């Protein structure tokens, strides 16, 4: 699949643009409903984390294709203060700066893959969502394997 898109994030207008881009790219890639909305919602959360905690950062939207599936990787990068307790940030009850606790665990539930790396140099969140090109063929192959 053609190129990635890099979006600078520093204002809440950038956040609106990032989720619109993510949705549009998901639709272009062929994600069925409601996936584009799930992806846009997850992007909204991690982009807001950048604005609130780091001030500025970047969202990279990277389409990928493998032999039997396609997908979208979303990477959020900032050079902010970092998240001190990553485990806690991914727990549902975690509440930092105005009760943002819901954001990251919620985003993780919307996507298929979710990785969070944070240290003194900043935070990187990598999220992926993918679809098998032929869900039906895959289900049949799965059944044959098990038989």
């Amino acid at each position, binding site marked *: 699949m053609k190129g990635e898109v890099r979006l600078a994030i520093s204002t*809440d207008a950038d956040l609106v643009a990032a989720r619109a881009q993510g949705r549009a790219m998901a639709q272009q890639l062929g994600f069925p409903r*409601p996936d584009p*909305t799930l992806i846009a*919602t997850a992007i909204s*959360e991690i982009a*807001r984390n950048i604005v609130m905690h780091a001030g500025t950062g970047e969202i990279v939207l990277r389409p990928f294709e493998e032999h039997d599936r396609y997908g979208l990787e979303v990477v959020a990068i900032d050079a902010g203060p970092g998240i001190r307790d990553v485990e806690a940030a991914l727990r549902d009850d975690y509440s930092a700066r105005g*009760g943002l606790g819901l954001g990251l665990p*919620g985003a993780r539930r*919307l996507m298929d893959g979710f990785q969070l790396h944070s240290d003194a140099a900043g935070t990187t969140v990598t999220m992926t969502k993918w679809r098998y090109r032929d869900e039906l063929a895959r289900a049949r192959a799965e059944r044959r394997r098990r038989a």
Partner: protein
Amino acid sequence: MSVAILKQGDYLIASIQSDLSDTEVNALRHELAELVGVHRSRGIVIDVAALDVIDSFVTRALRAIVLTARLRGAHTVIAGISPDVAIAMVQFRLNLEPLRVALDLDEAVVALDRLTRGDHEDEG
């Protein structure tokens, strides 16, 4: 303005026209709290059908808008959550409890009629 607010009898109808930034969502809270006083409105419908995303911020903001309007004497019903947004909210584990929601504008007005009738009975 990305939200059109119309006065319809005792009610205010706030129709969100496009995806909103966080700043615009916060502005809506102030504007509705003001307008409830200006028009002496008893009820508000917030039509969110045009919202592409209802994430944790918007969920919290809607709750704040409704509670603020309630302190100004108005009931609020949220209308028009799209099927995809509803699915995303459930998977995210967001919910709008204890806010009132309705399928669309018409249903929201019916719900407001019921809610505000209750207010009048209390007064009587």
